[in-house]
C-alpha cells in the first residue's frame, strides 16, 4: 500500500515584549528562579489580568504577515486543566474567536513551490518551568517549579494539514521563523524555547482525501528533531498499518538521543478543557483602520526582500533565498553591500567562507567576528587586484581570529599581489628553464600543462603573483 504523509504543525513563539501578557513582570530570559513574578502571574487569590497592548499589536502583525483575516471581534477563553507549571490550573488562551484566521504561506522544496494553509493565530500565556532532580520528570521523586515564565506572551500558529513530507515541514518552520524574525516580534531561539513546534502526523492511502488517525508529536526541540521526528513517526505508523493494526490517536514524545518516539499514554484520556469565556477580560475589537495602519507599517518580509535582492542586485533566486533565510544574514548582506562591495561577491562570500566558519563554530551571523564593512573592504582589495581570491581566503581566516582589518593583515604579512610583470619575469623564465617536460607538453598541445607551471610560479612567489598575469606572461614566453 502506498501511503502519503499528512502533516500539520503547531508553532508556539514567545513574543519579545518588555512585560508579560497580563502583568508588568519582565519577560527577560535566564533570570534567577521566581524573581520575575508577581501576585498576578502567580495566580494568587484575588488577582486579575490586564492585557498588554503590544501583544495584540504583534499578533495582528503576524496575522497580516501570514495573509490571515484579522477578526474584528476576538476574545479570550480559559482552558482548564491541572498541572503544576500552571498556577491557576487554567491557561488564558483564545478558543473560538482567535485574533487571526484563514491565512497561508508559500514554501519551496527542491525547486517546487507549495502553499501551506494557516488555520489560525491566537494569543495565550506561557506556563512555568519544571526542574527535576532525576534524569527525567517522571523518574524524579519531586519537582521544582519556577514561575518566571508564566504569563510570558505566546502566539500559537496552527497550520492546515497541508504538508506531505518532513522536508516540507522543515521548510514551513524555517519560513515561519524567518517571518517572525523579520517582524521583530520574537527571538525565535528553539534552544531557549522562544520557538516551539509540535507536529500532527497521519497517513492515508495515496490519492485519497480522508484524513487518517493522527498522532501528536511533542518535544521536537530543534529543526533537526522536527525533520527526524516526522520521518520516524511516518515510518512507525506505516509499520503499524502494514501489520494490519490501527494507529492510535495519542500524544507522543520525541526522544532525540534515541531517535524514537514514545507514547505519553495517559494523555489519551481526552483532556476535557471545559472552555469558558474569560470573565476577567473584555473583548478585543480591532478596527479596520488600525489593521491598515499596522499593515502599512509592516517591515519588509522575507519574500519581498528576496525579490528586492533579485531585482536590485541581480542575485539568482537560489542565492537570494539563502541570504534572506535569516533576517540577520540579510541585514549583514545589506550592510556589506552598502559599503560599496559588489553584491554577487558579497553573496558568494556569505554563502561560502562566512557560513563555513559560522557552522564550524556553531555560532550565528550575529556573532560573526568579521563585520560587514570589514568583509566589504576585503572584497575591495580583491577587486583592486591588491590580492588574489586565494590569498583573500587566507586573509579572511586571519581576520576571523585576529579581528584585524584586511588591509592591516595584508600589509603586516606582505601579501600584496604582484601585478608588475617586471617583478615576476625572472621567476617565469627560471621556472620555464627548470621544467622542460611541462614546456614540451604544452608545446605539444597539452594546454593544461601550463597549470603546473603557473603553480610553480605561484609557489615561488608565495601566492602573491597575480595568476592571470602569470598565465599571460607564460604564454608569451612559451609561444614567443
Amino acid at each position, binding site marked *: 500500500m502506498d501511503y502519503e504523509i499528512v502533516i500539520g504543525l503547531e508553532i508556539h513563539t514567545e513574543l519579545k*515584549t*518588555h*512585560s508579560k501578557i497580563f*502583568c*508588568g*513582570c*519582565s*519577560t527577560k530570559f535566564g533570570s*534567577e*528562579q*521566581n*524573581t*520575575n*513574578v*508577581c*501576585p498576578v502571574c*502567580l495566580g494568587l487569590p484575588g488577582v486579575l489580568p*490586564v*492585557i*498588554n*497592548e*503590544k*501583544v*495584540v499589536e504583534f499578533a495582528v502583525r503576524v496575522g497580516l504577515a501570514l495573509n490571515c483575516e484579522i477578526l474584528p471581534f476576538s*476574545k479570550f477563553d480559559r482552558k482548564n486543566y*491541572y498541572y*503544576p507549571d500552571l498556577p491557576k490550573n487554567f491557561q488564558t488562551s483564545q478558543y473560538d474567536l482567535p485574533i487571526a484566521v484563514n491565512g497561508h504561506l508559500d514554501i519551496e522544496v527542491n525547486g517546487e513551490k507549495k502553499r501551506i494553509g494557516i488555520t489560525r493565530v491566537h494569543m495565550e500565556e506561557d506556563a512555568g518551568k*519544571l*526542574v*527535576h532532580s532525576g534524569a527525567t*520528570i*517522571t523518574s*524524579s*521523586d*519531586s*519537582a*521544582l*517549579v*519556577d*514561575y518566571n515564565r508564566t504569563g510570558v506572551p505566546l502566539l500559537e500558529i496552527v497550520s492546515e494539514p497541508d504538508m506531505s513530507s518532513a522536508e516540507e515541514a522543515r521548510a514551513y518552520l524555517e519560513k515561519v521563523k524567518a517571518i517572525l524574525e523579520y517582524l521583530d516580534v520574537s527571538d525565535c531561539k528553539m534552544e531557549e524555547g522562544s520557538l516551539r513546534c509540535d507536529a500532527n502526523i497521519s497517513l492515508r492511502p495515496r490519492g485519497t482525501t480522508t484524513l487518517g488517525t493522527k498522532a501528536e508529536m511533542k518535544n521536537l526541540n530543534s529543526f533537526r528533531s522536527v525533520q527526524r521526528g516526522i520521518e520516524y513517526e511516518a515510518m512507525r505508523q506505516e509499520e503499524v498499518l502494514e501489520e494490519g493494526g490501527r494507529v492510535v490517536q495519542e500524544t507522543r514524545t520525541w526522544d532525540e538521543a534515541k531517535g524514537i518516539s514514545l507514547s*505519553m*499514554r*495517559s*494523555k489519551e*484520556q481526552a483532556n*476535557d478543557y*471545559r472552555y469558558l*469565556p474569560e*470573565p476577567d*477580560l*473584555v*473583548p*478585543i*475589537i480591532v478596527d479596520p483602520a488600525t489593521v491598515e495602519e499596522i499593515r502599512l507599517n509592516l517591515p519588509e518580509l522575507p519574500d519581498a526582500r528576496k525579490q528586492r535582492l533579485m531585482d536590485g542586485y541581480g542575485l539568482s533566486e537560489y542565492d537570494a533565498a539563502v541570504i534572506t533565510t535569516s533576517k540577520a544574514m540579510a541585514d549583514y548582506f545589506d550592510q556589506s553591500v552598502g559599503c560599496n562591495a559588489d553584491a554577487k561577491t558579497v553573496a558568494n562570500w556569505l554563502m561560502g567562507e562566512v557560513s563555513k566558519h559560522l557552522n564550524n563554530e556553531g555560532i550565528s551571523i550575529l556573532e560573526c567576528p568579521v563585520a560587514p564593512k570589514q568583509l566589504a573592504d576585503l572584497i575591495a582589495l580583491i577587486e583592486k587586484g591588491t590580492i588574489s581570491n586565494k590569498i583573500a581566503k587566507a586573509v579572511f581566516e586571519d581576520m576571523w581570529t585576529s579581528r584585524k582589518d584586511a588591509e592591516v593583515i595584508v600589509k603586516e604579512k606582505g601579501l600584496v599581489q604582484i601585478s608588475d610583470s617586471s617583478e615576476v619575469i625572472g621567476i617565469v623564465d627560471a621556472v620555464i628553464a627548470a621544467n622542460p617536460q611541462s614546456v614540451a607538453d604544452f608545446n605539444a598541445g597539452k594546454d593544461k600543462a601550463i597549470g603546473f607551471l603557473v603553480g610553480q610560479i605561484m609557489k615561488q612567489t608565495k601566492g602573491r603573483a597575480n595568476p592571470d598575469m602569470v598565465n599571460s606572461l607564460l604564454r608569451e614566453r612559451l609561444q614567443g
Partner: protein
Amino acid sequence: MKITCEDVANVALLSRLEFSESELETFTGQLDAILEYADVLNKLNVDSVEPTAHVLPLKNVMRADEAKPSLPRELALVNAPEQEDGYFKVPKIMEG
C-alpha cells in the same frame, strides 16, 4: 435521573476531588436534584438569543508594554507549603 454516580465520579476526577462511596452517593443525589430544578431552562426557546458572557459593554481594555518591578522572591515564596533553593517544591509528576 439526570446524573449518575459514574458521572459524578468523572466530574470529581476533572475537579481533582476524591470521595468515599457514601459521599459520592450523597453528592449524586444532591446534584441530581439541582439539575432537575435547572431543567426549567429547557422550557425556554433561546434559539436566536446571544449568550451574555460580560454584562458591561467594555472592550479593548489594555495597558502599555512597560516592565514593572516584580515581587521580591521571599514574598513570592512566603506562602509556599514547600520550597527549595528559591523554587516551589511539589511531589513527583507522573506523565499526563
